[in-house]
């Protein structure tokens, strides 16, 4: 631990889901956070409701890194079935807190591990009569033990408890006692042999701990979403449920009781997509939230939205595919599928938030973009961003009013002799539209997914078809540089890294490690598709650019190969992580070092499967 105040501690708690461990994990997280120490919690839970193993990763760093770390300095083992296997997660020299009843762990010879057996079950039994409550509080006992080991003060725990149980303060007492139980047990029965400790810092003041689905929901509300049509699917459900909760608080007219948003649980994702298009066509700001399987089911409707030019916001909280895949693991696997979703020639704007703040901002902007470009707009987040808590600066209040795009009302129509729905009058590929209900004889037009001309009349004419398709391509060009621009950190190093979405956080840390190792890198974080024109400049400015992403096939790598053209494509090196865990900096560093020190001859565009943790 070099400089004073340096902290990089990684705790892993192995419990079973549905046992209330989540709440204990949160209390610990908030307590460390309350000590002014930056935290990065990650929850690895099973696709099931109760009784299966679940792992909680809590990383605390003075540098404020948001990525996780693979190995644990402190492992809390409360789940018998995984007890032995979990030991592999321990760093040598690490600390093991475990249920005494499991018996001593089988550790490989001479592995220097600090063992703290604790009779969690017994302790709980002795003090908590009700079995359900007991199961729950057992987890709090571990918080007490850990607090004692790491030196987390009661004040911090108290702050955490108040925040946690804001809505039901009555529960605080019981939780407090359970924590004390753990602390006391350690004090009286065990002696600290390890050196792990957390000293307070001042690096969290003004920061919030939020998950990306929560901030995205607020973004949707602030973006003026008035129709939410969704179908439950992990990991997107909580986004919709947050929108509904916010709507119940902020969208109900106190006088009339009217609700200024429609929130419909559709019968499936096809229907949800159709409702979004119907609502967008009628002028509402509509969105749907889903994950991979839902995107597949929305394919036909999204093609209709593209060709008939109907605004709509499609949020995909990505999980591991293909098919049902691993519903509770994270991946960036729908990038290329969403980008050109539906049969025929199509292409859609895709926003790629990389932080919980951007989950908020991009959702808010997505509605403007959808109406400006009159087309379905995708927002691709993922389980890691959406369902884990992240430390973030406060969210900004929007500084601009809505931009509803090119909509003609009665007043404008009064001044016109002719209205043609699909005529490119401004040369930017974006036509003007009217909405049903406009009281004017020029307003009406016929919306269809079949061939149509500028006046929205049915046609099978080859010239007209081609003209319309060329305009649609132009329209996306108009969009290209209106989308969130890449964020570039460039000091004219020869080596570049290009990443997007939640991979960002591992890149930040990896760059520090690489730089410390003498390998300085520049960095471009892509925030939308189609790729901004500036990306070509970045790639042109570097002899080699690592394209970092979380999927097997290097989907963004492929998109870049096409959009940047062959010359620049030759400089791209694909790094792929696809095991369902968030990307770890160490894996990324290793992959880049492997490459950099690989035989010059090796074809750089054929990195084998890449990083797989």
């Amino acid at each position, binding site marked *: 631990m070099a400089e004073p105040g340096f902290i990089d501690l990684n705790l892993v708690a192995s419990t079973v889901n549905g046992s209330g461990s989540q709440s204990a994990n949160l209390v610990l997280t908030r307590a460390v956070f309350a000590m002014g120490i930056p935290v990065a919690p990650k929850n690895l839970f099973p696709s099931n409701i109760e009784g299966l193993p679940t792992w909680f990763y809590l990383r605390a760093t003075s540098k404020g890194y948001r990525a996780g770390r693979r190995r644990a300095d402190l492992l809390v083992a409360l789940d018998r079935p995984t007890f032995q296997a979990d030991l592999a997660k321990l760093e040598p020299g690490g600390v093991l807190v475990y249920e005494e009843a499991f018996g001593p762990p089988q550790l490989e010879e001479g592995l220097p591990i600090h063992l703290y057996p604790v009779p969690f079950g017994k302790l709980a039994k002795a003090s908590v009569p009700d079995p359900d409550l007991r199961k729950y509080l057992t987890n709090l006992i571990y918080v007490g033990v850990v607090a004692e080991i790491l030196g987390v003060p009661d004040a911090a725990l108290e702050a955490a408890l108040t925040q946690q149980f804001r809505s039901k303060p009555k529960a605080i007492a019981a939780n407090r006692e359970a924590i004390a139980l753990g602390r006391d047990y350690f004090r009286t029965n065990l002696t600290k042999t390890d050196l792990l400790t957390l000293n307070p810092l001042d690096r969290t003041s003004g920061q919030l701990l939020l998950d990306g689905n929560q901030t995205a929901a607020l973004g949707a509300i602030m973006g003026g979403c008035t129709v939410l049509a969704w179908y439950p699917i992990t990991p997107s459900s909580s986004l919709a449920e947050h929108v509904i909760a916010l709507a119940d608080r902020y969208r109900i007219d106190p006088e009339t009781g009217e609700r200024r948003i429609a929130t*419909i649980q559709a019968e499936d994702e096809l*229907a949800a*997509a*159709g409702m979004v298009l119907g609502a967008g066509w009628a*002028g509402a700001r*509509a969105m749907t939230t889903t994950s991979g399987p839902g995107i597949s089911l929305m394919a036909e409707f999204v093609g209709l939205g593209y060709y008939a030019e109907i605004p709509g916001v499609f949020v995909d909280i990505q999980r591991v595919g293909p098919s049902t895949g691993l519903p509770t693991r994270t991946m960036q696997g729908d990038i290329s599928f969403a980008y050109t979703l539906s049969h025929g020639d199509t292409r859609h704007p895709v926003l790629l938030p990389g932080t919980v703040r951007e989950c908020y901002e991009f959702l808010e902007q997505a509605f403007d973009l959808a109406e400006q470009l009159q087309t379905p707009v995708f927002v691709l987040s993922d389980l890691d961003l959406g369902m884990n808590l992240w430390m973030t600066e406060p969210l900004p*209040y929007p500084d601009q009013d809505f931009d509803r795009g090119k909509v003609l009302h009665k007043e404008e129509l009064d001044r016109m002799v002719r209205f043609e729905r699909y005529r490119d009058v401004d040369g930017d590929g974006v036509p003007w539209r009217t909405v049903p209900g406009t009281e004017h004889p020029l307003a009406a037009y016929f919306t269809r997914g079949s061939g149509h001309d500028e006046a929205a009349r049915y046609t099978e004419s080859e010239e007209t078809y081609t003209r319309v398709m060329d305009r649609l391509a132009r329209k996306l060009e108009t969009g290209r540089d209106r989308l969130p621009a890449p964020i570039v950190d460039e000091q004219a190093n020869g080596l570049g890294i290009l990443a997007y979405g939640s991979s960002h956080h591992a890149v930040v840390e990896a760059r520090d490690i690489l730089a410390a190792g003498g390998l300085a890198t520049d960095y471009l974080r892509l925030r939308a598709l189609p790729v901004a024109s500036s990306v070509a400049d970045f790639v042109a400015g570097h002899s080699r650019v690592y394209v970092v992403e979380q999927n097997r096939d290097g989907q963004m790598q492929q998109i870049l190969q096409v959009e940047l053209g062959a010359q620049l494509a030759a400089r791209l090196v694909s790094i792929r992580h696809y095991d369902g865990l968030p990307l770890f900096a160490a894996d990324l560093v290793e992959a880049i070092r492997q490459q950099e020190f690989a035989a010059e001859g090796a074809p750089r565009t054929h990195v084998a499967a890449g990083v797989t943790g």
Partner: protein
Amino acid sequence: MAAITVKTNPRGLSRDDYKGLATTLCAGCGHNSITNHIVKALYDHGVDPFRLAKMSGIGCSSKATAYFVERAHAFNAVHGRMPAVTTGAALADRELLFLGISGDGDTASIGLGQFCHLLRRNVDCTYVVENNGVYGLTKGQFSATADPGSVLRKGAVNQLETIDIAGLAVQLGASFVARSFSGDGPQLVPLLRAALSHRGTAVLDVISPCVTFNDHEGSTKSYQYVKEHELILQDLDFIPQQAEVEVSYDEGTATEVELHDGSHLRLRKLGRDHNPQDRLEALRVIDEGRRSGEVVTGLLYVNPELPDLCSAQHLPRIPLRDLDASQLRLTRDQFAALLEEWS
């Protein structure tokens, strides 16, 4: 040029104002007759073209929205998915009058799930199924409403159970269910007007022969078959809200249903008694017809009380698109307080 007087409706619009483009459907297609009845119903009803939204899926039937009220907005969706699109549009602007046209393939085959859920939500719209028992536009394959044993022109016999759209709708608890025949304007026009006055989903299962692929001997959706097997439940008159009752009629034989907007549908019974407010009764007449091979037409079931989706959602009267940032965003204070609460 001498002024010529055109007959107009209360809204001051002429019949022509409700016309659409020339049909491209086959001459004699039942769908064309339905189009004409729709034009009459909309004209008589004095519907505001600017508030009308014409919805459809894909099929010969679904093309029909182009053939009436050119001055109204229309949305020709993808195959079988009109219900979802209509639901979204209805949420966005509950003041619009939605008239959906679909086919039996569009509704009972690919679209069956969405159709059922539309009814479950009781979305405020009129949903006309132009039912010919075949896929017209793809050249005459059986649809899911084909009756067991009915025969295709080339001889294929339908082995499967039929899906009775009206019966299904009643069973699912739809709030307005009627069956009619493209050839029976006097029955269809009042039913259409009643449907327009109803708040909630009004299903009209209209037998509409496909002269090109399903109007032959052995078809149960041919003009011939319907003429021979139609069992008409009632004589119908639509009485607009304003109009005071002129026609006097002998008690007992007639009943009236008051619709959501205060207008009435008067039913003069023919032959058998049928109380259209009794769901079980409706299920029975449909089931009996199904067994006897009779085509039971008329108002089968109505429940004017069932709240429609927008009411259940407590949506404001004004279209959602007209809400501005000040009505949709948290205030700066609320925003700050929320973040505070989240911190």
